[in-house]
């Protein structure tokens, strides 16, 4: 199929972009890297008469870091830019892990993290860590700006809390809390560079010698990225060991709702959720400075590397 005809705008300010979206009465789409949008337009999965390019808006192209407020990522920041950012490299290693395993070099040079989020795919690789990080999304519309916790953003496959005239302008990631470790793990479905069959973002907070608060977010195993609350609760206050992590992994897996598709069966996804959770927790615990008794080193096949 061929790409349908559309009008293309490249505004220079957020206001102009929002006005264009609002003026199109739901028939416009923000256009970041286009790596999701263009294939979907071409295959007819998405319809749009107007594309509003975000890449010429200088404000949206910035990455900022402030020790008090954390990391701010503009909506036109490309995945590759994030990997190049010293602040991200130094303070948000799990984000680097996630973004470096998102797509390929070529796609990362075009695609944005905001696009990865707004696409609403349950298997988006940058999302689990953003959720574990309690990121907030700054959404702008003619009615003004609102700040939404990213955990409330996903409504279903391809469905988000975005209003048709709303633009994600920034992603806020809180500063790294002390004594915590984050980690990401991905099982690419078939080849080394493939969409995730399962992905996981976790946080472990250290409280003395035990685990304090923990967060576990799983992608590609439900209609939206999921928090494994029961597994998180099991970790709170626990001394980490291989047996416990096995149990937590299984618990997390039982909280998933995967489907069978061409990439993997539901049963395999569920089993792999347990493995990835376990492996990611080992990495996160190590980053938080917590020892895990009898744990096997995290395998690199899942990307749960330090």
């Amino acid at each position, binding site marked *: *199929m*061929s790409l349908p005809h559309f009008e293309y705008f490249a505004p220079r300010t957020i206001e102009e972009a929002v006005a264009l979206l609002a003026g199109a009465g739901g028939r416009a789409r923000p256009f970041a890297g286009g790596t999701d949008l263009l294939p979907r337009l071409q295959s007819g999965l998405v319809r749009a008469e107007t594309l509003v390019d975000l890449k010429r808006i200088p404000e949206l192209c910035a990455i900022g870091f402030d020790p008090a407020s954390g990391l701010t990522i503009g909506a036109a920041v490309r995945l590759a830019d994030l990997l190049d950012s010293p602040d991200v490299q130094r303070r948000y290693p799990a984000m680097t892990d996630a973004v470096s395993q998102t797509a390929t070099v070529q796609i990362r040079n075009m695609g944005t993290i905001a696009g990865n989020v707004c696409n609403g795919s349950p298997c988006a690789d940058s999302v689990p860590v953003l959720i574990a990080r309690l990121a907030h999304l700054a959404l702008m519309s003619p009615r003004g700006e609102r700040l939404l916790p990213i955990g409330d953003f996903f409504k279903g496959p391809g469905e988000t809390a975005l209003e048709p005239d709303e633009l994600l302008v920034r992603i806020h990631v809180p500063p790294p809390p002390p004594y915590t470790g984050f980690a990401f793990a991905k099982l690419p*479905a078939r080849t080394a560079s493939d969409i995730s069959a399962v992905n996981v973002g976790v946080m472990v907070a250290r409280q003395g010698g035990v685990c304090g608060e923990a967060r576990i977010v799983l992608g590609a195993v439900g209609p939206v990225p999921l928090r494994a609350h029961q597994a998180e609760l099991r970790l709170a206050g626990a001394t980490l060991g291989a047996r416990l992590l096995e149990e937590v992994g299984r618990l997390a897996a039982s909280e998933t709702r995967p489907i069978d598709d*061409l990439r*993997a069966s539901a049963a395999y996804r569920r089993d792999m959720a347990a*493995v990835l959770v376990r492996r990611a927790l080992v990495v996160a615990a190590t980053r938080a400075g917590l020892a895990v008794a009898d744990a096997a080193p995290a395998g690199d*096949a*899942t990307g749960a590397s330090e």
Partner: protein
Amino acid sequence: MSQKPCIGVNVPRVDAWDKATGTAQYTDDLSLPGMLHGALKRSPLPHARIRAIDTSRARALPGVKAVITSADLPRVRYGNWRFSPNTQDEYALAVDKVRFVGDPVAAVAAVDRDTAIEALDLIQVDFEELPGLFDLDAAMAEGAPRIHEETAGNVSVTREIDYGDLAAGFARADYVRDDVYLMPPVSHAYLEPCSSLAQADSLGRITLWTSTQTPYIVQCLLASVLGLRENEVRVIKPYVGGGFGGKMELRSWDVCAAFLARLLGKPVKFTQTRDEEICAGRRRHPMRLRSRVGFTKDGLLLAKELIVHLDGGAYNSMGPTATFLVGNLGAMLYRYPAYRYRGFHVYTNNPPAGAMRGFGAPQAFFVAEGQMNEASADLGIDPIDIRLKNAMHPGDKIRGFATIGSCAFTECLERVAEMSEWRRQRREMRPGRGIGVGCYSFVTGGNFNWFDTKYPFSAAEVRAYADGAVHLLTMAADIGQGSDTVLQQILAEDLGLRLADVTLYAADTSLSPKGDLGTWASRVTFMVGNAILDATRQIKEELFKVVALKFDTNVVHSFECKDGMVRVKGRPEKAVPFGEAVAMVQSLRRGEPLIARGSYTPRDMGLVAPTYSFGAQVAEVEVDRDTGRVRVTRIHTAHDCGRPLNPQAVEGQVEGCVQMGLGYALTEELVMRQGRTLNASFLDYKIPGALDMPGIDSVCVGGPEPKGPFGAKESGEGPVSPTAPAIAEAVWHATGYRARRLPITAEQVLRHLETNPTANDDRRVKP
């Protein structure tokens, strides 16, 4: 001064610069003034009668110039197997019936591509759906509907091979295996989708630029369909971005482009989308293979019975050859004293399968090598040792169809064992890792004249000029394998010239000498190379005469072309520069240029091929026992391709084969449901990428093949077969899991490990 040799040395590909810089023009890059764009309306149903087609709304769309259906086209069926006209079962546009999802029913020509595609949706086809047959058993079942009226039982081709005393062999056997293997359909996944551009002159003669491996076949069949004489069709092959067997037939879009160009008096171009390529392009045959082999307890082969059902899909395409080749290849590699083969090519309502790299061999050897590996484990004989016991040797005969020429299979096995430190690694590898071996043999060219050509199988014209330049004209089709480079090397070497002295004009049927059957069966270097040597022999004869005359040489002397000179052997002072010698010949001929035509046709060389390549490959894998994921960490190959004329090109072919074999083993499969291909994009059809590639060592083993040009055999297809069985064996070594179907998925391995968590660790030496 002596020149560098052109043969046996690494020569950069002549097309490398154009391809790397993007200046190479592929068919879809071509554009002619006034050119129209075509698109095909394809069947959404796997099996249906066409009650009526209404094209009026499509024709009314502004920008649409014509819409055609089978009613407009001459009713001529075509197919590559001209030798058996009853196998020619395809029309360019479906007549009365569609037989697979994607069967073309109508074609549009419009001012641009978007309009052409828009028009497709306006074509209304009134279908009456028929029951679809999607698997072998359903298609062969008693009373199954016929997919083609003429073919009762839906078996379109059968092939039988019998030799030796099978019953006696099995009776003597201490150990018999009887296994069924299922092989999946996979895509060629060539990067350049098919494209063709047709232009008609005022008399209706056609020039067709098309992405093909077989210009001559396209020329002949297109002429027959259009009711033209063969020589009123000119086929030009521009740069081709890979074919792997998928571009060796006349295709619907070639016919529609040419027909519409004649009808409208304007050039028309059709280019396939990836979706069309994956859903409706050719594919490697899915097969069910049942193989029974008998061994003595010492591991000697006694008998083999191979029964193969090929799911050919809706049309024969190259299926008849596949049916022959699996049977032939099933008897290769090892000495089988008795052999029985039954091959059945079955029509189904799946998309048609065709030729694909290694044609028949990946399936035949996955089975043969898999069984060899299983036998080795059960008999307690090392996998390499059991192969050495049974290996073919030079001069071996397979009754009725083949005589083995040069064969360094034993050396390949020994060498690959050395390269991979096989014996140590096999014993000592730590749990979770595995090492396995797979072997192969392949034809170097095909002897069987299934196209029923009336010309030589290959031809070359060499034109030598007084300025020292030489032109080579041939129909050989370089589709990325590098034949343009190696053919120039052969010519330059034989005339003692430099590569820069040679210019190649290839694959234009109006300029190239007739004929050439094209690029398949690893035939080009061997056959066209031999045709070139036939031509240069004639050129040299003329040149030697004038040099003899000039120096009044003694009759016992002989001559040579070397270092840019034509000279008396052993008398370097008696030499004439090449161009000067040509000028002398030309002058003696009162101006007639020095041109020679050479050809090659294999005769008296059996039914299959003039000669065969051999090789052995070892794969090392690492299995993640928690996820079942297999990572191939290293591949070692020892390949007998005769003499490697351009070693780095051979290495490139071996590595490309590994990439394909890796996909076949682990990630590739066209997922089918009721005749529909579900994974019709590279997002869902996964070929291995750079990150998946293991380190690869490859070496060439063996001496020159006497029948080959400068001793060469094949290297482009054989090495595609061993990778999957070698990986499968390595996975078994690591986990105890035996794959008898492909691809080997992580989930299969994981499920096996759940029930056998320490399987196979006990086979190793305890650390």
